[in-house]
């Protein structure tokens, strides 16, 4: 058959790992009986099932032909991810006006056809728009300006 389906292998191992973490986290929870199930009963059953399916998918990856793990375009993932992370970190300190500007700027860099002038204009515009819509009009409790 030749090639291993690395996409299936990755997904199978991911499932096994998630199941293992879950089983570890619920190790102390009582199982109970079928008539009086404890808090650990259903999660444990689910985790075991997930581990079994994960193992099956991973094993099948070596036997049946399937897709290889596709190439990943890192640029949008990193930049958009960074923009989201920055929002969480900065908002309580810098306020919405500055945070929105930074988030839009960083996310906007992910476009392959990015243009600096346009991006800065959009960032300023969206920052003003977000403050007016979300804080002024919708009354979300967010600071607008940097919190001392």
């Amino acid at each position: 058959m030749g090639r291993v389906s690395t996409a299936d292998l990755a997904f199978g191992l991911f499932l096994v790992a998630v199941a293992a973490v879950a089983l570890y986290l619920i190790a102390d929870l009582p199982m109970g009986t079928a008539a009086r199930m404890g808090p650990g009963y259903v999660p444990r059953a689910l985790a075991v099932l997930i581990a079994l399916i994960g193992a099956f998918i991973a094993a099948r990856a070596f036997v049946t032909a399937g897709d290889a793990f596709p190439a990943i375009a890192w640029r949008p993932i990193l930049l958009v991810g960074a923009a989201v992370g920055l929002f969480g970190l900065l908002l309580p300190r810098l306020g919405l006006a500055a945070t929105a500007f930074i988030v839009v700027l960083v996310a906007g860099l992910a476009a392959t056809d990015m243009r600096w002038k346009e991006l800065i204009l959009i960032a300023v515009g969206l920052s003003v728009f977000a403050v007016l819509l979300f804080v002024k009009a919708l009354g979300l409790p967010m600071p607008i300006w940097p919190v001392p």
Partner: protein
Amino acid sequence: MDLIANLATGFAVALTPANLAFCFLGVLIGTLVGVLPGIAPITTIAILLPFTFTLPPASAMIMLSGIFYGAQYGGSTTAILVNLPGESSSIVTCLDGHQMAKQGRAGPALAIAAIASFFAGTIATIIIAVASVPLSALALKFTAAEYFSLMVLGLTGSIALAHGSAIKAVAMVLLGLLLGLVGIDVNTGLPRMTLGIGELGDGIGFVAIAIGLFGISELMVALSRPQDRTLLSVALSQLWPSRKELRDCVPPMLRGTAIGSILGVLPGGGAALSSFASYAVEKKTSRTPERFGRGAIEGVAGPEAANNAGAQTSFIPLLTLGIPGNAIMALMVGALMIQGIQPGPQVMTAQPQLFWGVIASMWLGNLMLVILNLPLVGLWVSLLRVPYRILFPAIALFCCIGTYSISNSQLDIGLMLIFALVGVFFVKVGAEPAPFILGFILGPLMEENFRRAMNLSRGDPVVFVERPISAALLFLTVLLLAVLVLPAVRAKREEVFQE
């Protein structure tokens, strides 16, 4: 007659200026989203969820549902003019709709799409109004066992209709169920899988997961693809189809409405499947099947009627049973629960204003959509010229603000980021997130009903097959699974999902 009285209640709610405005806002945003490729209705609903929490429940539901069926209308505009499905259920509309546009008949194609959608939307609204009373009455007889079996059927349906490998969809459902259980166990008060984080006691934030998986992750994936939109410059001078064309379209519209109405109710079903099925039926029954794919107006009318009917009737399981049939309906359940309403058959009796108001607004929304989509089509076309690089930073910002505003929580932003990355991974390994979100929503409900049913039967699982309704639901589940593993059906399913 009760139906008339109920609809009167509904229209009284839907016709208040505020609700008319929210309905209009919903269908307007829905059309926008449908027109613009790269923004899915599920993404939009996820992003807008947090902003609806300050609204009364009826207004929130009216607006969110407007987005959903509005996107079905808007999607056809892009399908016909650009040959891109603005929305997944418009894929088949591309086939003949775009051919018609190339032949200079973009006007009639757009008009018939709107007419078919409106026709189907109207019929489907009536079906919802008529079917919901007996279904809710039936559902009130449900005990824990029936609820559990119904949810099993629903999840199996979402597996059957997921794209790609069925076993991956099974894994996604189970994964969703497991993550849905994070938080304090209601029966014992013990924290489960919370990593000692107090905030996780209430479970993983639903909005954070939904926006991460369907919003941010979608951006990350979409940006790695080239964004190509070649607009067909069309003169929309002649908008109306000829009398003969209209007459030719009546049977496809009727058949499409019937197909969509049935498939929409099925668990996991909905708009996309309905339009595929309708197209296949029209091509099979046509006396001139060779015209299909070359600009047959019936190939636009049938699927457009079907996808709109399907979008509409997929509200039936949600409204009557409280069980979401697809991922978008799962978001609606989330919206209701955050509003403090437990969706289920009791909603109709306990909140008739909400229930009938939403149904009445569907018809009003459909009416607004005809107006939005026919005379204003030029406006929507010009929107298509807005490049993605201008749209997506705004989407990213709104995702962040929406998630954060739920409880002013940095943890939610962190979770959203994690699920965005996991979502990209899911796309890369070919696992669809829709069954996951359905499992996530149903997880706590299923566990609760499972434990209660087992408790009442003293641990004997026979209870699930002893009770006739529960047994029937499980029988349907087995049937669905059997069909799923049959090789002939598998081949057919793959064929359907090929483009």
